């Protein structure tokens, strides 16, 4: 008789029950499969993750995996870093000094080569359209697993550009978008005086009570919870994290929206937000690759190095995972587009970088002489996402249910490389 009962259960209930560990042995059939999903290496201690999203697909050969002796070597020279044996681009000199707190993953290899599909893939670990389901981004998964259900702060914030959302997990795990870090959160402040706003909330509370007394539906309570959280956030001290105007460290991060976004990310992590994504666009360098990558690298260099250093100073580096990545790499060869050539899309072999979370100056994977294919430790999007989960103490084999009751594993077929990082 359970199959219909399960169908009756709303998605919210299922999630609630799952979170509470209520799925006891009583519900036979498929439930033991869920129960059996023993914690898979979810032992990491990171409490927050900052994803620095390099939109457009950053060139691996001009950032983390330089090949000075290859055919398409390009203009940049490698430099030594604080991690012995790791060399990175000369335009990341400050990052080089904190490389002992990071790792370069040089064996990324993925199947999607068009921007939109590849971004979706790297955020969710699933191909767009697969199985007719919209999958949640890693930020939404972290929000669900590490977020506070009733806290004053949102559990997933995306700064400076659209991000991928919560898919079938529902709007509760959608990112709160900050378009311009200088303006903070849209609609966070009321234009009204404090007393007027209080009056209004008082009226609202009164109406909610009366309505619930008569109609009693769950939806009324859920509405109340959401509004309470939103009001709490408006009034909270933590929400000041969104105001970067008077942060004394501002200059360290460089200038521009990305620098401001990274600074805001640090402030958000300090007040316990579990996932923050900051994006930096412009990496789609089909043309004029070297001048553009140099300028982008300078932005990354200032902001990323300041972020690592400041988190370390505040004692938060071990509990914060920083990821730098885009949707794919770029061709090992330089194209022949006019006077200022560039590199084109290349998902077959590329790099990403991770810092914090106890990582100690490591390299995972290796590409061939040209940076064209992976010769050691090929790493899939799933391996990477599984590693992020493990570093955050999340069991990536856990299954979430879609609205129609389909269980979908958080990350499919992951072979994480956590132990190679620590």
């Amino acid at each position, binding site marked *: 008789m359970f199959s219909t009962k399960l169908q009756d259960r709303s998605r919210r209930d299922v999630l609630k029950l799952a979170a509470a560990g209520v799925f006891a042995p009583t519900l036979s059939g498929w439930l033991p499969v869920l129960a059996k999903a023993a914690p898979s290496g979810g032992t990491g201690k990171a409490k927050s993750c900052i994803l620095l999203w390099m939109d457009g697909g950053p060139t691996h050969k001009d950032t983390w995996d330089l090949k000075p002796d290859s055919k398409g070597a390009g203009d940049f020279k490698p430099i030594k870093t604080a991690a012995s044996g790791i060399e990175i681009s000369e335009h990341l000199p400050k990052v080089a000094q904190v490389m002992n707190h990071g790792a370069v993953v040089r064996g990324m290899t993925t199947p999607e080569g068009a921007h939109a599909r590849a971004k979706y893939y790297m955020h969710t670990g699933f191909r767009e359209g697969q199985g007719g389901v*919209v999958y949640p981004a890693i930020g939404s998964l972290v929000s669900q697993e590490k977020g506070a259900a009733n806290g004053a702060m949102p559990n997933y914030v995306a700064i400076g550009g659209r991000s*991928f959302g919560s898919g079938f997990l529902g709007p509760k795990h959608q990112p709160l978008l900050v378009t311009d870090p200088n303006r903070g959160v849209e609609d966070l402040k009321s234009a009204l005086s404090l007393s007027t706003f209080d*009056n209004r909330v008082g009226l609202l509370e009164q109406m909610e009570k009366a309505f619930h007394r008569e109609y009693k539906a769950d939806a009324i309570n859920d509405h109340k919870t959401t509004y309470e*959280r939103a009001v709490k956030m408006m009034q909270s001290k933590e929400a000041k994290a969104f105001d970067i105007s008077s942060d004394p460290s501002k200059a360290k991060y460089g200038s521009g929206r990305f620098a401001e976004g990274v600074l805001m990310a640090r402030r958000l992590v300090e007040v316990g937000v579990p996932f923050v994504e900051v994006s930096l666009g412009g990496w789609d360098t089909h043309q004029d690759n070297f001048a553009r990558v140099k300028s982008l690298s300078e932005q990354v260099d200032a902001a990323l190095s300041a972020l690592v250093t400041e988190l370390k100073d505040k004692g938060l580096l071990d509990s914060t995972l920083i990821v730098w990545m885009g949707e794919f790499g770029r061709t090992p060869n330089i194209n022949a587009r006019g006077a200022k050539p560039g590199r084109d*899309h290349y998902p077959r072999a590329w790099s990403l970088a991770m810092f914090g979370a106890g990582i100690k100056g490591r390299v995972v994977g290796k590409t061939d002489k040209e940076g064209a294919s992976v010769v050691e430790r090929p790493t899939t999007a799933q391996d990477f996402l599984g590693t992020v989960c493990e570093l955050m103490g999340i069991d990536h084999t856990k299954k979430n249910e879609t609205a129609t*009751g389909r269980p979908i594993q958080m990350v499919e077929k992951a072979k994480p490389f956590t132990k190679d990082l620590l």
Partner: protein
Amino acid sequence: MRLRPVALFALTTGLAVLVGDLTNIDAQEKVNKKAKKKVDAPATEPSEKIPPRAPRPSNPVATPAAKDDAALAKVIDAEVTRKLAAAKLTASAKCSDDEFLRRAYLDIVGVIPTADQAKAFLDNPSGDKRAKLLDELLADPRFGRRMADIWTAKLFPKDSGNRFVLKEPLYKWFEEQFNKNPGWDKFITSLVTATGTVADNPAVTYFLANRSVDKLTDTTAQHFLGIQLQCCQCHNHPFTTWKQTEYWGMAAFYSKVKADNPKNANKGGDNTTIGVQEGNGRTKQKDFFPEAAKNVNAKFLGAEEPKLNEKDPYRPALAKWMVAPENPYFARAMVNRTWAHLFGRGFINPVDDMIEESVASHPELMDGLAKHIATTGEYDLKYLIKAMCLSETYQRTSKPTADNGADTKLFSHMTMKVMSPEQLFDSLAQVTGNLRDTRGKGQPVGGKGPRVGGREQFVNFFLAGADTTSAVDYEAGIPQALRLMNSPIANNPATIRALLGKDTKPADAIEKIYLAALSRRPTADEVKDLTAYVERVGAPDAYGDILWAVLNSSEFTLVK
């Protein structure tokens, strides 16, 4: 009874999802991709005999011999009452006029009534005003919009492959068709067999937006037959008896479709001139039709392989089979989906996954209604909606009784539904007058006035990346609540001026706000409390406060 071994349902097989935009990829990568682009071969068990499988037989209830909505409503009530009695549950009372009014408006035309409409209905003493209202609403052109909102979301999924395909022509076509109400059989036949350009026949958009046989097969099964087949694309269905060959047998009906590739609109491509043809042979468009599926004959789901002439189009044969009264899925899916639209949940749930092992809450009623609508009822959707809405079952209050609060499947009380983002936008726009319906006009241009975006932007913000929101769970998050509280939507002083006019007596002003936003008059207690509030805070600010609270209340956003 068979359980749903959900773990098996995980989507693992490496289905080659086809890349929509190759414009920026260099040759080196294309070569690379070709090597990877493999589609799993269809089943290697072609010789296996698959027994025909129809949904569980039931004893359909007797239905009227002619189209008679009131009589059909009585059939519904008798069966629902019988089940409630068997479960020893009481039924909630008949809903009040205001509950009925707002519910019917939102369900049928997708927006709440205006204050004047509410007042007129509530003050109308005639005994048949509910039936008359249903007729008015079903004849209202906004019925087409409401249904077009729902069906465009289903049949034009958001993905990067169709981002240049024009959505508006399909939306408009749906709107017209739902208003014309040609019969669900004819409607779906013209959709499934559509040929021509977008400009000539907007229905072809369905094929352009789902540009591959597997997507078409999935959406056809899911939305018109109420079955999820996509698992069988790669392996046998884990918890039904569908075999993988069934999938490609259904897919073969779309095998001769040639759907143009959308042009890059950023480079000025005109996507009204692209379209769909059905050729003589199987399409060679690789991205449309996977190699591996080409040797499977067209075969109706769970039924025979029809004799098809290679020179004739295949899709009419599929459509004919689907809409035939004896088809075991089509009418049931229509009835179940329509019921869910009005009651928040179907007889079988999920409505697009009516697996044969599932047990309907009211199988006899569902099958009776399906049989009726497919024959006597002429697949008349408006007639079906009217009959359901005339029933006492639909006209129950959502207030639970002492013993039926926990019931979620026997329809002892009306389910509290949550407004869809479209309903919320349209209702807020009507009350506040400061939201613009920008459909078909692109993005609104910036300018003076409050910063509020268009309808699509609002809807997308509330959908937050999903295809639809739940009909019964409140899912909005903090960003949505912040927007409703603090954006100009509910904070425009002009709204309250326009709404109240010269009314200065608190009781009248409060009544106007309640009628406009909640479609009801305030209770005596509410008038007393709010009048005291107005006296304390002072008009007109106090009215702005009250309107704000009402627009942000759960009573506003829920459909009681």
